[in-house]
């Protein structure tokens, strides 16, 4: 069986923190509780990134998923009133579980076919980065500069798009301002 080093212990803990809350989302009936579980799961994924020696990505995961996207979800829940708080399963419950189990079976088949243990990570150990941030920065502003700029355009479009979709109508907006005066 697996020997209990600090690394393996942390891996098992982080896996549990990731998987158990994610399973909880599937079976908890309150949307708010499932949101809390989702945040926990995000934190677990960040822990896995730390174990994979990707410190910057781990922090970005914490910042963007656990800090920002969860708050977006909170606001979406608050903007759609009380009816939407329940989180029950649809009539496709059996189909969904069947699909998930089939996918898992396929993936485990795929993982076991290839001999993945020959990849030991020594290639990266030899490179011996003491700071991944510098490397990522050079890549983002060098090799992948076009994708980087396009990502900024995408974010701007998402910002404007989200505002213009949610804003109901011009007249409605004006009436509210007049009321406040």
């Amino acid at each position: 069986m697996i020997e209990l080093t600090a690394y393996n212990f942390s891996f098992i803990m982080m896996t549990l923190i990731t998987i158990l809350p994610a399973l909880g989302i599937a079976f908890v009936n309150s949307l708010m509780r499932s949101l809390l579980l989702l945040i926990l799961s995000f934190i677990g994924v960040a822990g896995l990134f730390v174990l994979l020696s990707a410190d910057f990505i781990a922090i970005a995961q914490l910042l963007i998923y656990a800090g920002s996207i969860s708050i977006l979800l909170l606001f979406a829940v608050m903007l759609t009133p009380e009816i939407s708080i329940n989180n029950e399963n649809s009539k496709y419950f059996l189909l969904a579980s069947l699909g998930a189990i089939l996918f898992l079976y396929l993936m485990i088949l795929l993982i076991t076919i290839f001999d993945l243990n020959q990849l030991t990570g020594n290639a990266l150990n030899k490179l011996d980065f003491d700071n991944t941030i510098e490397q990522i920065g050079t890549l983002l502003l060098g090799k992948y500069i076009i994708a980087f700029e396009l990502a900024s355009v995408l974010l701007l479009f998402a910002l404007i798009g989200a505002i213009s979709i949610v804003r109901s109508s011009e007249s409605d907006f004006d009436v509210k301002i007049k009321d406040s005066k």
Partner: protein
Amino acid sequence: MIGLEAYLIVSSLLFAIGIFICIGKRNLISVVMGIELLLNAVNIAAISFSRYGSGFSDQSDALAGHVLVIFILTVAAAEAAIALALCVLVYRHFNTINVSDVNQLG
């Protein structure tokens, strides 16, 4: 020995749960949560391949997985904002965000 295999199994588990939530949930916001879980599973796979992979042509290739994850994070943030705006719009139009009830175009 915990290696690439273990991380890939965790990733596929998370992906399977994400698929289950995406299909099996009634609420539109839960479906968005499922999509976020799917993206997280992909992130774990990308980072673990970047960690354990070998045969990089040069040093700058080694962290290409990290850069991919940063782009996924960006797209996920944009996608979440738009999807949740659509949720609010659907609620206003149909007075529900139950996915099975939203079955008309207008």
